[in-house]
């Protein structure tokens, strides 16, 4: 029996609405006691001046493996996750082959066990081969351990398929994660459609491409009663629709990649492909609406949107370069620096969106420091000031628009099932 005492820390656990200075004992991989005396412990971690929080949970990581090992592997992604304070990450199924079979789910679990860094949860495909045509064997995927179903980052264009999937998933009580985008409207878009895209003559991703799908998704969630989570929203209309849907009692939740609540499409004036993201960086009115949605609880979850892409791909022309940024190692610092410190969110609500809320979306017993639960813990230095240097990333890819930024807030220790990993 290993006993670890975390001393003198400020424990913030949104699941218990707890924010207090208290010692925490971890025993045999579980949260064992609060405020105990420090006798017979194997390890004492001094958390003076630090925040002790449930380990962060990410709902949207792309792990590259199998199929795109030049971008990332499960080994490197989980190492990056641990460095960023994440103890559980949800692997999106856009691997090659896609995760639409039991064997694929088991492969991810095996590789994750071998990497032995953090928990890797698996999202299986909604459709066979992620092709958006017919249902994947969802029951088998769930049996193999898939905790959610999604075709993300590909949107489900076929409304009938989504409706059937929502109904079918009622049998397994698993959520569907939806990336809301109408491909006919977004077509070959590169950036947010608006004044800046007009100036730069870059093909636009209009807000309506997201809005009409958010509207469809909400309606289908309402009529089927299925569990639906909108993975990464970015428009004022999405926020507004979700707010009204929740007020009507519809069972939906929504997440956001935090950069969409901070940076605008002005960044694209550099033509730097590291700003080519999907959902795209939008104009100020949408950024403001996202911030408001985060603050009033309309947006439940903050996710990393971790999308590693090898540098030779990001070096291509802007229209050919792939979307996305690596984010597992910067999300926490970005949230502290850009959302908490300016006062948009307080610590407890920001941490809720990265711990207990994503756990509830998946329906898993994580994201909490309640007695008896698995000891997944992030110890955060809220004042640590550090410069983002992609050459130091544990991730295999370096595609980030935050290179050279000074961030505050960093995980100094990440404990996964009772074992310190940093």
């Amino acid at each position: 029996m290993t006993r670890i005492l975390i001393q003198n820390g400020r424990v913030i656990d949104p699941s218990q609405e707890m924010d207090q200075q208290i010692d925490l004992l971890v025993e045999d991989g579980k949260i064992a006691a609060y405020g105990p005396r420090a006798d017979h412990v194997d390890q004492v971690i001094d958390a003076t001046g630090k925040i002790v929080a449930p380990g962060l949970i990410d709902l949207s990581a792309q792990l590259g493996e199998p199929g795109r090992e030049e971008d990332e592997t499960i080994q490197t992604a989980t190492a990056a996750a641990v460095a960023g304070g994440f103890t559980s990450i949800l692997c999106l199924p856009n691997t090659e082959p896609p995760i639409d079979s039991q064997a694929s789910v088991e492969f991810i679990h095996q590789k994750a066990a071998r990497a032995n860094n953090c928990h890797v949860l698996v999202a299986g495909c909604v459709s066979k081969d992620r092709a958006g045509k017919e249902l994947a064997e969802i029951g088998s995927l769930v049996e193999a351990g898939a905790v959610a179903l999604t075709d993300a980052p590909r949107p489900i264009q076929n409304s009938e398929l989504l409706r059937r999937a929502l109904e079918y998933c009622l049998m397994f009580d698993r959520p569907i994660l939806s990336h809301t985008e109408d491909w006919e409207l977004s077509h070959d878009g590169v950036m947010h459609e608006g004044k800046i895209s007009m100036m730069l003559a870059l093909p636009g991703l209009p807000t309506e491409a997201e809005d009409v799908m958010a509207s469809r998704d909400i309606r289908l969630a309402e009529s089927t009663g299925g569990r639906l989570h909108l993975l990464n929203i970015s428009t004022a209309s999405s926020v507004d629709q979700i707010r009204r849907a929740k007020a009507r009692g519809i069972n939906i939740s929504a997440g956001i990649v935090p950069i969409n609540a901070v940076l605008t499409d002005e960044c694209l004036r550099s033509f730097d492909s590291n700003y080519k993201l999907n959902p795209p960086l939008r104009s100020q009115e949408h950024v403001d609406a996202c911030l408001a949605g985060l603050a009033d609880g309309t947006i439940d979850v903050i996710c990393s949107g971790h999308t590693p892409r090898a540098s030779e791909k990001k070096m291509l022309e802007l229209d050919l370069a792939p979307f996305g940024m690596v984010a597992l190692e910067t999300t926490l610092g970005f949230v502290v620096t850009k959302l908490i410190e300016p006062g948009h969110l307080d610590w407890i609500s920001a941490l809720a969106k990265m711990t207990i809320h994503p756990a509830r979306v998946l329906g898993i017993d994580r994201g909490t420091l309640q007695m008896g639960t698995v000891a997944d813990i992030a110890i955060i230095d809220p004042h640590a000031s550090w410069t983002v240097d992609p050459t130091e990333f544990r991730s295999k890819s370096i595609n980030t628009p935050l290179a050279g930024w000074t961030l505050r807030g960093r995980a100094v220790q990440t404990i996964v099932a009772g074992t310190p990993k940093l």
Partner: protein
Amino acid sequence: MLEIQPDPVLKFPESWHRHHLLDLESLSADELMTILNTAAAFKSETHGFRRKLTALQGKTCANLFFENSTRTRNSFSLAARRLGGDTIEFTSAGSSIAKGETYIDTARNIEAMTADIMVVRHSTPGTPLRLSKHVDCCVVNAGDGPHEHPTQGLLDIMTIWEHRRNFEGLTVALVGDIAYSRTARSNIWGLKKLGAHVIVCGPATLVSRHWEDFGVEVVYSLDDILPRCDVLNLLRIQFERQHTRPFPSVREYALLFAMNRERLARAKEDILIMAPGPINRGVEITPDVADGKHSVILDQVTNGVAVRMAVLWLVSNARDRKECRR
């Protein structure tokens, strides 16, 4: 026979510091006038390019064209050679993916052949700007997709300037495919800076209302604006850049927007008719108008050589002078 003579004593304008010409959006009115004055001086000193100068002697100008072009490429080559420079021609239509080499690597290879100036055309917006971050030589944008074509904007503006000498109070309409036209963008920024009133006119699917944010008038009817325009610049429809048809048919487009004899009769007496080549006779302009007395289309082509001489000289000299100070 060309006579090679010592250069006229052209004094380098101290206010010019740019090593690259990537767009007209970021240029000041003073910088635009510096280019125009330099271009006019080159044009007169060479008696309309019949003399060769030495301002670029010992310099190599590389034409790096990732998209097909004949007139712009030849115009740049001629400009470089008239100034005594050497040229490298590199034409490679197709993307990085098709070639298996990134455009940045291609450019670095060309630069390694000791290019001093790189003239870049590419179908993707921003590519010249991105290249300028990866090479040491001067970069001149010769058209980056629908984004900008600064020397085209300059030659259009120079042509207007030669005929009118003043931009204040002048009304210039850009007609046609504004959305996919790099010529439109470069003209808008340049003309606005110099004080002209700019109208963009075309099918609503190709003319964004956002232009109003920049003080540009947005109009959908050519007939409504005709009587008050001093200059019409008739843009080609860029079918190859559009993934869906923005209007039902070419016939309907010509009906609404083609400049023909009937429309010309309702225009100002001294209206200038311009078009960046290549023109589609019968679509945006009828042959009688293209070849008529109001047309300055061929003046534009001639002035293209002058503004390109000016730009090549200004950017390469600015870079030399900075090197010297180091």
